[in-house]
């Protein structure tokens, strides 16, 4: 297996250029799908290799339940630097598992509580209007997917902008953006190098929904105004005791909203793939190559370790 087992741990770096370029130069739908696929595969390979290292690393820990043969010099020689990396991998995998569990539990809890909050409201065409002066709107997936919007949010938009807002949230529900976001949140939790991809995707899904909303209402400017006005209305002074509210959400780059508005005021994005020679095209090729190498390395390492351990156990 040799060094191949380490490659997937650093290959996520190859996805960074495309994460930076795709959100501005590709159609948001294309960008979302490309970046999500890359993030999920890279995270899976990285975690797999961490698990392989952990297996070899654990075998040297006294009192481990693994076969003694797995700690043989023959096995350890197969993985360079395993004495150090094995121990790090144990801690690393533990961190990954805890981080993933936190992401999943939090997503489940928020969704459950939000669904419980609107339980019993009449299903008004898939939109739940809540009487609250504070402006907010979001998509709530579930068995009965709903757009949740406060009267405060509706009050700051005109009729056409409201249609754009509802269309935007419906696009999130129809395209299952919640799943995309959950996947990339898990990916970023398991491999910190993928965090820029999570940030990029949290932007591209909003852009995707913006584009669908613009198409639904037939007017890009109305949609741009809806986003801009809603963001300005949502702006609130820091609340004492709740400093996190005032800070930009950590899942989003500063400047997300202005970029969305600017994009909507510009022309409809091209759905074509980038030309291979453009910077975005090159970045996409680098990411695809990195992902491929990552998959091959991870599989190679898995097979190699399987063979070695089988031989060691038989001894």
């Amino acid at each position, binding site marked *: 297996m040799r060094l191949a087992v380490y490659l997937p741990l650093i290959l996520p770096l190859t996805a960074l250029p495309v994460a930076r370029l795709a959100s501005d130069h590709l159609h948001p739908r294309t960008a979302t799908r490309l970046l999500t696929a890359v993030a999920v595969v890279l995270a899976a390979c990285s975690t797999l290799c961490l698990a392989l290292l952990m297996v070899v690393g654990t075998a040297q820990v006294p009192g481990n339940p693994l076969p003694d043969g797995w700690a043989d010099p023959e096995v350890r020689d197969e993985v360079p630097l395993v004495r150090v990396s094995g121990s790090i991998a144990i801690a690393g995998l533990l961190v990954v598992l805890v981080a993933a569990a936190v992401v999943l539990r939090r997503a489940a809890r*928020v969704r459950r*509580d*939000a669904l419980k*909050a609107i339980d019993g409201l009449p299903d008004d065409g898939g939109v739940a209007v809540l009487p609250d002066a504070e402006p907010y709107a979001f998509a709530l997936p579930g068995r009965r997917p709903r757009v*949740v919007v406060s009267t405060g949010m509706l009050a700051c938009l005109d009729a056409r902008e409201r249609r754009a807002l509802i269309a935007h949230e419906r696009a999130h529900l129809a395209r299952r953006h919640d799943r995309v976001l959950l996947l990339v949140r898990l990916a970023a939790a398991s491999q910190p190098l993928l965090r820029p991809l999570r940030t990029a995707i949290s932007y591209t899904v909003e852009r995707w929904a913006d584009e669908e909303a613009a198409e639904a209402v037939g007017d890009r400017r109305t949609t741009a105004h809806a986003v801009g006005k809603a963001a300005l209305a949502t702006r609130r002074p820091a609340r004492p005791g709740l400093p996190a509210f005032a800070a930009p959400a950590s899942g989003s780059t500063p400047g997300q*909203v202005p970029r969305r508005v600017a994009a909507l005021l510009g022309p409809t994005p091209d759905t074509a793939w980038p030309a291979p020679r453009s910077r975005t095209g090159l970045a996409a090729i680098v990411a695809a190559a990195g992902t491929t190498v990552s998959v091959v390395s991870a599989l190679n390492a898995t097979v190699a370790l399987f063979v070695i351990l089988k031989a060691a156990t038989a001894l």
Partner: protein
Amino acid sequence: MTDRRRRGSGSGPRTPRRGPGELEAAVLGLLWASDAPATATWVQQRIGDDLAYSTVVTIMSRLYDKGLLTRSRHGRSYAYQPVSDEAGLAARRMRQVLDREDDRAAVLASFVSDLSDEDERTLRELLRREARDPEDGRGG
């Protein structure tokens, strides 16, 4: 407030003055009794007191601003409906969920994320430029 009182007493001298909030309560009561969403005209005809149409509209939009009424387009005006206890309760529960999540955008696909000061300036500039030169921004 002063507007409403002046109009209320001016148009019907024999009507005793209403205390603040009394008209709101009367409007809410009417809407509660109505099965369907009601317009300001409908309310004006039933509330008595010879209230001016604009007064009724003012009261109803104030109730709407407070989140006590919801409204929908009805021709050229709005039809209003009282917010049910159910909806009010749902809103309070939802606010608890949202307030607990310091990073709600990370969990729920929110329509807009928070703005930094810099974002706000950029955004206002964008919208201002676009308002000045609307054709410039028109895309396909």
